[in-house]
């Protein structure tokens, strides 16, 4: 089930981050203490923290990687702190965790902390510019990844179904995302390859696809392939989900027509 207020708040959070900027979006409590923050480097999210979010990254890493123990990670964390070494890179360098697992754990921590921070009854956000934290780009996340990650926390079953379907249909040169159908939700439940797409473009495309398919479905039309300013965009419905594929090369429109026609042949 989607939560429109949380969707809107999350979008407002990212609207407050200047384009391609580095810094922290900080939320303070009424007594001036920090309720939490979202760290951003060159427009990509590095980390989120919230006073209401109790889990540590090490807890999630132990969940994700059964060969790791809390004691091992605490020891390494203390060492990294003492010697000013980055924890993620050190975990990888020592072969304690694979990059995909670390990436997944960091994203989960960031999304869960951000969801708590957004729901916090704290003061408004303020942006504090910074010259950069030096996070490895592989260990940072696009706004689209983070938004999909937060939506996946709210509705994990639907998000998993959306991602599984996208994995089947997104091929080279194509980007795709899925939203919950007709609910007013504009945040992707799942996405593949949408990292480089501006968040405003993504939410606008989601709104347009939702609107077109609402009209089309009423006339028993199953899918729509549109061309908008050189961008080919295919949308179709499957149960509660609205899928959107995007492609921008010269033959994109016809390629998407052929792909979606093949997918909907038996409907």
């Amino acid at each position: 089930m989607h939560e429109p207020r949380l969707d809107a708040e999350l979008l407002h959070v990212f609207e407050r981050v200047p384009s391609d900027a580095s810094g922290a979006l900080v939320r303070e409590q009424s007594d001036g203490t920090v309720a939490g923050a979202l760290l951003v480097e060159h427009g990509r999210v590095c980390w989120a923290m919230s006073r209401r979010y109790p889990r540590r990254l090490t807890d999630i890493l132990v969940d994700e990687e059964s060969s790791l123990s809390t004691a091992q990670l605490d020891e390494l964390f203390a060492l990294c702190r003492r010697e000013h070494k980055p924890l993620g890179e050190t975990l990888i360098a020592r072969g304690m965790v694979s990059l995909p697992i670390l990436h997944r754990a960091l994203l989960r921590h960031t999304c869960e902390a951000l969801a708590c921070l957004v729901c916090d009854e704290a003061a408004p956000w303020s942006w504090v510019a910074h010259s950069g934290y030096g996070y490895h780009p592989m260990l940072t996340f696009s706004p689209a990844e983070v938004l999909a990650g937060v939506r996946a926390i709210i509705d994990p079953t639907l998000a998993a179904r959306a991602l599984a379907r996208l994995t089947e249909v997104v091929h080279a040169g194509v980007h795709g995302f899925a939203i919950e159908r007709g609910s007013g939700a504009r945040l992707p439940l799942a996405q593949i390859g949408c990292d480089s797409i501006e968040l405003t473009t993504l939410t606008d495309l989601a709104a347009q696809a939702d609107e077109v398919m609402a009209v089309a479905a009423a006339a028993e039309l199953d899918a729509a392939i549109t061309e908008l300013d050189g961008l080919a965009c295919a949308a179709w419905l499957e149960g509660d989900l609205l899928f959107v594929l995007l492609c921008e090369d010269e033959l994109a429109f016809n390629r998407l027509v052929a792909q979606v026609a093949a997918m909907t042949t038996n409907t």
Partner: protein
Amino acid sequence: MTALGELAGAVRDCIVVAWVDARTGEVVEQHVARSGPEVEPALDAAIEVMRSRARPQRMVLLSARHVHIVQRLASERRRVLVVICDRTPNIGFAVALVRAFVDAEAA
């Protein structure tokens, strides 16, 4: 034969070809290649979808039985060509024919 009639003859299993005003929803000119009860609702659906947004230059809508190919005239964006045909395997060819027709009209 009119230009719309020629296009209807070129698109395989064509049902109707029409110029419509996307702003008012009015059918300006049409050629019905195969009359039947589906013509009017199919045209209405295509017009309605195109009216819902001003931006798409072109659109293909798929139902289980039909294909709606809709394209704006670049020089007069409210004027939209709607082609509705049966759903056959070679949709791409029909899409290319419609594009070429609209491009020629704009030239």
